[in-house]
């Protein structure tokens, strides 16, 4: 087997050392640093992007929190305003109802007074007319024993009953 022929052992080992260490030098001083450099740059870029993404996420979360807070505050203000409006409305309605009731009571009292006055007036007129009619009848019937004061008193009693 040529593999076991020691004639070329030293030559092969010599050239192996030269080639291997040349390759080791080229790799360690030229190519590996180049690859490492680009991989590091890429890693830094990825880390930067991840950092930016996490910062943007934090900002978005903060904005969302602010939005929820503003929404809650707006709701609270709206509820407060609504409650205030409702109260004002109720107060206004109650006030108007009171005013109306007072007006109605006044009108009622006035009406009642007018009715009373009209009634009294009518009764007086009825009384006067009845007296007149009774006196006319008494006059025509010549009932001298019945005096005008009696007639007046009699009609007054009837009307008052």
């Amino acid at each position, binding site marked *: 087997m040529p593999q076991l022929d020691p004639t070329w052992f030293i030559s092969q080992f010599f050239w192996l050392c030269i080639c291997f260490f040349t*390759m080791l030098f080229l790799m360690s001083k030229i190519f590996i640093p180049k690859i490492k450099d680009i991989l590091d740059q890429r890693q830094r870029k990825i880390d930067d992007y991840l950092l930016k993404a996490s910062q943007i996420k934090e900002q978005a979360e903060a904005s969302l929190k602010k939005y929820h807070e503003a929404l809650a505050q707006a709701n609270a203000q709206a509820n407060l305003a609504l409650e205030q409006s409702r109260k004002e409305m109720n107060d206004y309605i109650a006030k108007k109802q009171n005013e109306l009731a007072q007006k109605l009571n006044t009108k009622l009292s006035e009406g009642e007074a007018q009715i009373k006055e009209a009634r009294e007036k009518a009764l007086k007129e009825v009384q006067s007319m009845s007296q007149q009619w009774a006196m006319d009848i008494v006059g025509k019937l010549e009932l001298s024993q019945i005096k005008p004061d009696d007639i007046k008193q009699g009609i007054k009693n009837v009307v008052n009953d």
Partner: protein
Amino acid sequence: MSNPMEQFNIQPIIPIKAGGYDISFTNSSLFMVLAVVVSALLFAVCLRKRTIVPSLSQSVPEALYEFVSNLLKENAGMEALRYFPFIFTIFLFVAFGNLLGLLPYSFTFTSHVAAVGGLSLIALLFNICIGIKKKKWGYWRTFMPNGIPMALAPLIMPIEMISFLSKPFSLTVRLVANMTVGHIMLKIIAGFVLALGVGGVVPVLFNSCIVVFEIFIALLQAFIYTVLSCIYLSDAIHSH
């Protein structure tokens, strides 16, 4: 039919003698140099324009880097990442050696005991250096597992040393055997093509399938070699 072992013959290209030793530039040396040149060219071309969003060509060296880096982290921990260039070079050297050997008329230096054994020896020496640098004299405890009575040290330490020294041997034999067998099989089947005439289409098709399989084996063996190197490195850093 030609001898399938002929493809493993080493041919000197530029004869060189130094201090009485023959260090000729051979076809094996040529493919070692090619492995370095091709991998360096590939990396240089792929990393010519580096962008944050990688192009298809840029993602090739990046994927290899991530792959070997994860392999090292999983097998030897984060501490071993400082030795990443060494492990990365081992992976590329073996992978390119295996893959270049699959080209027609090429030479597979990873099928040679001296080349792979030399590489395993370098890895072993590297691990020993790291172990000694990290643990100083305590490195000898590597050969004396925890909980073993000192009385058993004369028996256990040689066994542990043999086990330790057999690591590069097993690495070498595994890779060399796989590469040798694969190439012999390709050569034998290729030998049938002309012998069978028109029927030679069958071995051609079969060889095409075998080549695909061999590409897979080439990468798998580079992966296994690297994983085991990572494990041995982990032993040097964390053992006992």
